């Protein structure tokens, strides 16, 4: 059986032949497309390490069957930076030491992007903490994560305003 799907991954359309219906988006990215930035911490929707943006929304890629997302647009951590320049969230994560081992970090950053785009947390730290609670960090970098998300959020809304102006 060969099943073919098309996905737009980090802006590039790709046709993917799947020899197996069981492949999740996470395993597709990691094991078949060499996009290993997205991490697997639990494979069961319990840790958030595998967070990607799927059609603009943050989801756990470990529980998403690839076949079911034929035609979808996917953004992973590899597609976030603009060439050499870090995305404001990435820069803020570095500045606020929002990680230690770095294993949860791609998921945290993609989740932060999703949160900021959802637009419901604003500059309320408590809403940011709640909104980021689907991403476990065993190293305990939460304080830096919250600070980084708040700062990036501010910068991104400033940038957006400037663009409009």
């Amino acid at each position, binding site marked *: 059986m060969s099943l073919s799907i098309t996905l737009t991954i980090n802006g590039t359309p790709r046709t993917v032949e799947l020899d197996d219906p069981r492949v999740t988006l996470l395993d597709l990215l990691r094991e078949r497309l060499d996009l290993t930035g997205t991490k697997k911490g639990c494979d069961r929707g319990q840790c958030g390490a595998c967070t990607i943006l799927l059609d603009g929304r943050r989801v756990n890629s470990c529980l998403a069957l690839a076949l079911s997302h034929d035609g979808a647009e996917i953004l992973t*951590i590899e597609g976030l930076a603009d060439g050499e320049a870090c995305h404001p969230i990435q820069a803020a994560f570095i500045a606020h030491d929002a990680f230690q081992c770095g294993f949860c970090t791609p998921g945290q950053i993609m989740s932060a992007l999703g949160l900021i785009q959802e637009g419901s947390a604003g500059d309320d730290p408590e809403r940011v903490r709640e909104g980021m609670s689907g991403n476990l960090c065993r190293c305990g970098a*939460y304080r*830096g994560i919250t600070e980084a998300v708040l700062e990036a959020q501010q910068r991104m809304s400033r940038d957006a305003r400037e663009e409009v102006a």
Partner: protein
Amino acid sequence: MADTLPLDSAANARHGSSIGQPLTRRDGVLKVTGQARYAADNHPPGLLHAVLAVSRIARGRVAFLDLAAAKAHPGVVEVMTPANRPLLAQDPDEKQGPFSFRLDLLQNDHVRYAGQPIAVVIAETLEAATEGATLLAPRYEAESTRLGLDAGEAFVPPAIGAGSPPEVRHGDIEAGLAGAAHRIEATYETPAQYHNAMEPHAIVASWDGNRLLVDTPSQGLAWARARLAGLFGIAPEDVHVRSPFLGGGFGSKGLISGPQILGAVAARMVGRPVKLVLRREQMYGPVGHRAPTQQVLRLGAAPDGGLTALAHHVRTVTSSFDDFYEAACDVSHTLYASPAIVTTADAVRVDTGTPIFMRAPGEASGSIALESAIDEMALACGMDPLEFRLRNYAEVEPISGKPFSSKALRECYRQGAERFGWAGRPLAPRQMRDENGLLVGWGLGTATFPAIMFQGQARAVLRRDGSGLAELGAQDMGQGAWTALAQIAADSLGLPLARLEFRAGDSNLPDAGIAGGSGHTATAGTALHSAGADAIGKLAALAMADERSPLFGAGNAGVIAREGMLLRRDDESRGESFAAILGRAGLEEVEGRGHGAADAAAQEHYAMHAHGAVFAEVKVDPELGQIRATRLVGAFAAGRIINPRLVRSQYYGGMIWGVSFALHEKAVLDRRSGRVMNADLAEYHVPVNADVPSLEAILVEEIDPHVNPLGVKGVGEIGITGSAGAVANAVWHATGIRPRRFPIGPEALIGGAPG
């Protein structure tokens, strides 16, 4: 980038000393862009996927595996079982030294804990290997499971923790208790906990003839290499272990685990590279855990609150087949002054995997019990918990009588209390409410962790182009070795960080010792420090012997290295660049070698510990018993701080582990089957972001002239100690209910008077 970091970005470059600068992580860009390559991110050509099948019983033997069904599954290449597993040069049950544990490498069909590997399925795809493992559908001959602290006859082990005596007696404890004006006796229970680093144990292994290359997370590259070499009967030089990044370790990646080794065995068997990654539930068995404890604290105090006796007994468990004993009582050796101190330990054997070091081993479990008991005693004496601790401040190490090499704990108490706003805290519990009617409580815990050093080596090179290289097999599991060790190396070579190439995370580099015991920065840092000094010394010798050098004859006055220049110590206007010296000597480079280890003489004379004070606020719903640790302030003194930004992060992480210890994490074992029933990350609760709304860490200055040449103590583990007790004490203060069983659940609190 496998094992080296490029020269630094301009943003990181600072002039003058690197040590002490709050530099951002040098591996930061790699980590935030997804380019940092963790073990499981490797994908050599021809790679096969291996998945473990693990036992679902805790004791007995595997009677049947449906090999035919597994092999018939499309994509399955091979099933490795005890019947066909390639021979090893060593018996995995043979101990290879004090820090070697028995491994489960399919040596037979016996099962000694739930979660033990019983087969490995190797397939073309991860999906096929995973299903193949399920299709094995093992049948067992099961024996009854022994579990729990009362599972069998308790015995006194020969040694506990990393080799401390199971019984320490100082002074007359019974007299101290008998003569006390206040006495308390309390029993505290801590559960089994699992490290649960976010990165599951993983290995990508490939063989080239008799040479083995593995990518696997390791907190101890040299030990991992030696263990692999021994088991496969090959020379250590033929084993190459790469571990540039660990996705967390916390002790579970200190010694290479059975499943990791099985990945390499599988690769040998199929003659192709193999990737084996543990499933999350498989991390609750063969990769260690923190053993449960039951601790009995007996304290006596004089009318003025001075302790007269401190007795700390721990009952713990180890596996049926190996020995590791949680040294929870040892924390009572050093923290509080008492004329009589007794610590004792015993244990029972149970049918679980062997427990192992887990972040703040011994201290974490011991600290929550001791700090709770101290709080109970302060109350019995009618004293403020801080005042009580100051009353019992240990000016010298209580049992040994040694002075501390440094101890700024008093300052930690002072600064922490001030920042937290401790003054005015009501003595009685259940006095404070917030604007929403939630109960508010404040608690305190003293933090402590020994300043440990291992053995480590490093190499440093000064090059003719004016740049330098420092390298050692150091491991960065998140503590920031890539940055902090590079800072030390740059200073030791008198180079700006931007001119230093720094290599680590590879077993081909000099053995830097284990990243654990909060001793890595001290050990590896000292090795780098001396390697740099060695290189500079050689360079200086060249210059001082050369008539053409402005440093000629500087001999007695000596030279200093700074910013790529050697300068006369007595006249800093006279000097020349490293490049000039090497150029004239016609040398490409000079090499220095260094060694780091504890100074035995200093250890003989001084007690060496880091200290801290943690103040916690909790809020408790008065009717529902849900708890939140709303604010933590920790003040820590740990000698010299190489990089305050990274050190703060270590403290925050430790403090969150303390919150977790007190309120959240616990493995739930089914006593009949021996299986962990919450072997996941949904029901094994570790704190989420919303659990820790406010954390502060104060770096209290402490200059330690004795601990090592850098004056560095460890910061990785101390944060848990103190914090867990502070949270528990705050829960008491909020509710009037003394938690003695951790983590504290709602059922413990709702028994209290409602509202």
